[in-house]
């Protein structure tokens, strides 16, 4: 076998260790905060949440689709690296699988706690309705989870088996289908004009690619496996995805605004000028697209700027998904509904409750801990070899 990538041990000296320590502290603190959120979730139930009947999905669903998208993107990156046998990036690809698993676990925890009956989750698998995209997705999650676990186990000693290299394209296509289906889950809802578009699944694919690469960049930075060449490669690909995302957003918003169909214009205007306009302009566009683009453009493959840009992209994925989920739901479907009957959950305004924030922070902590612990369990720092070459 041939050693294909620079061992992490050598790079660790180059990496500022405090970044890794900071990641540990942050993950443990987040998990601790989340434990209290979890306590509230099970004591108060859904009565402690601010989502309800008119805005039935909130922070947890936005976080879930952001994390699942990032997971699919990170995994697709790894699959491409193995399929194309880009030996130089094998370490990064292994880390990408672990990051994908961490994001997947965090995302699934969000959606599980969002269920009205979390203990009935098994019905999704054993009593699936295949007329529902969500029914299909539940099976996709099982298969995807298995692919991730198998991928982590078979590469745990640092040797990438031949079949992993040769058949990763199957996993890649699965990741594409998986991320696209996530978008279709929204795209098929005819009642919500903002969602119901052929562009929605495509947008989800682009965002999955972008958020996944962002996750890999910040993960590579934290674990010290980002070097000049991989940073440059990631920068270029992220810039392409950022451009695509801007193009699709522009196309979606401008055509809708020009057509002036109220059902679609109203949620878009809520995004652009509503009470949470700053989520779009400041977090999504500013910190999630423009600042990372500038860092990537002028950083020229600098490890710090690539890592920070990736971190911003990954973090601001939530802003993008919040702007997909909430404005579509925060519209009166029938005039007069907002004041027809009052009660908890019968409002079209939404801001997450303390319980929702705490649980969300906790799920991120959980994902972070999985990655930090998994890094050691799966020997990600070990030298990586290709199983199809002789030493």
């Amino acid at each position, binding site marked *: 076998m041939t050693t294909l990538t620079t061992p992490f041990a050598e790079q660790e000296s180059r990496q500022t260790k405090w970044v890794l320590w900071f990641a540990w502290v942050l993950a443990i603190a987040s998990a601790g905060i989340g434990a209290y959120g979890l306590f509230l979730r099970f004591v108060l139930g859904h*009565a402690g949440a601010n989502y309800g009947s*008119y805005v039935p999905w909130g922070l947890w669903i936005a976080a879930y689709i952001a994390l699942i998208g990032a997971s699919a993107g990170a995994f697709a990156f790894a699959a491409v690296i193995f399929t194309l046998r880009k030996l130089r990036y094998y370490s990064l690809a292994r880390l990408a699988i672990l990051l994908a698993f961490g994001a997947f676990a965090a995302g699934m925890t969000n959606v599980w706690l969002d269920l009205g009956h979390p203990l009935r989750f098994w019905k999704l698998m054993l*009593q699936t309705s295949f007329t529902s995209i*969500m029914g299909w997705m539940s099976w996709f999650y099982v298969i995807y989870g298995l692919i991730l676990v198998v991928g982590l186990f078979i590469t745990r000693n640092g040797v990438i088996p031949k079949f992993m290299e040769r058949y990763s394209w199957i996993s890649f296509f699965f990741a594409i289908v998986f991320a696209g289906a996530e978008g279709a889950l929204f795209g098929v809802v005819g009642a919500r004009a903002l969602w119901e578009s052929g562009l929605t699944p495509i947008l989800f694919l682009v965002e999955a690619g972008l958020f996944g690469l962002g996750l890999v960049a910040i993960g590579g930075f934290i674990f010290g496996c980002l070097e000049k060449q991989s940073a440059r490669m990631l920068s270029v690909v992220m810039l392409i995805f950022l451009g695509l995302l801007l193009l699709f957003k522009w196309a979606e918003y401008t055509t809708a605004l020009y057509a002036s169909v109220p059902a679609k214009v109203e949620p878009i205007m809520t995004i652009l000028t509503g009470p949470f306009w700053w989520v779009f302009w400041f977090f999504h566009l500013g910190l999630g697209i423009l600042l990372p683009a500038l860092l990537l453009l002028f950083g020229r493959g600098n490890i710090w700027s690539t890592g920070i840009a990736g971190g911003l992209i990954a973090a601001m994925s939530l802003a993008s998904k919040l702007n997909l989920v909430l404005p579509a739901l925060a519209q009166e479907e029938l005039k007069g509904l907002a004041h*027809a009957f009052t*009660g*908890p959950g019968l409002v079209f305004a939404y801001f997450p409750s303390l319980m929702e924030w705490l649980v969300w922070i906790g799920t991120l902590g959980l994902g972070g801990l999985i990655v930090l612990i998994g890094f050691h369990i799966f020997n990600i720092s070990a030298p990586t070899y290709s199983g199809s070459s002789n030493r």
Partner: protein
Amino acid sequence: MSDTIVPKENLLLRMQEDIRRALEKPEGERRWGMVIDTRKCVGCHACTISCVAENKLPPGVVYRPVLDQEIGTYPNVTRRFMPRPCMQCEKPPCVPVCPVNATYIRPDGIVAIDYEQCIGCRYCITACPYSARTFDLGHTYTEGTPEQEVYELLPNYEYGVEHPRKPGSEESPIGNARKCHFCLHRLEQGQLPMCVTTCIGIANYFGDLNDRESLVAEMAAQPNAIVLKEELGTKPKVFYLI
């Protein structure tokens, strides 16, 4: 004007007779429907309140709100009241999206929810273009007061099944999507839905749309009968006379 359409008779008795006739038919041959005369509705909300009482609805769950709509610009303004039950669509968008078959169309056309099957994902709520589904968050009216009132624990009998309420738990119907079911438990006993019975202006007509002799079929065929959001192709079985 309506006097020329509806003979002066006790409309409630006629509708009850229509129901009895429908119940004699096999379930699959019935097609329950409702017509709401917005010209007769005065916005008293009696239907909303009676529905809450009949189905023991907790805070935040409503099956039949009455929408208060102002139309036009002063001085040419109109005020219209529009009760909004579940439309019991023939092509309900809420049914195919359910990932566990918890919501389904009964042979008599009523869109039902199996409370024990529902996982509370709320995908159906997002899919309904009429916001006719609400989520039971588990609230109680006496929340934050020193004592839990006994009436809050009384069971409801939706879908003919006893559902005791256990605040603080996530036992159904808490954690479920919930909606109007035309008071199915009353219907099967030959009684009209509560909202129809309690309407002070008899602005609701209910019965079997497949029965040409029924009052509801007669009213649904009026030229001024419309359905909401017809363009979506959901084919509601609730009509409005405007």
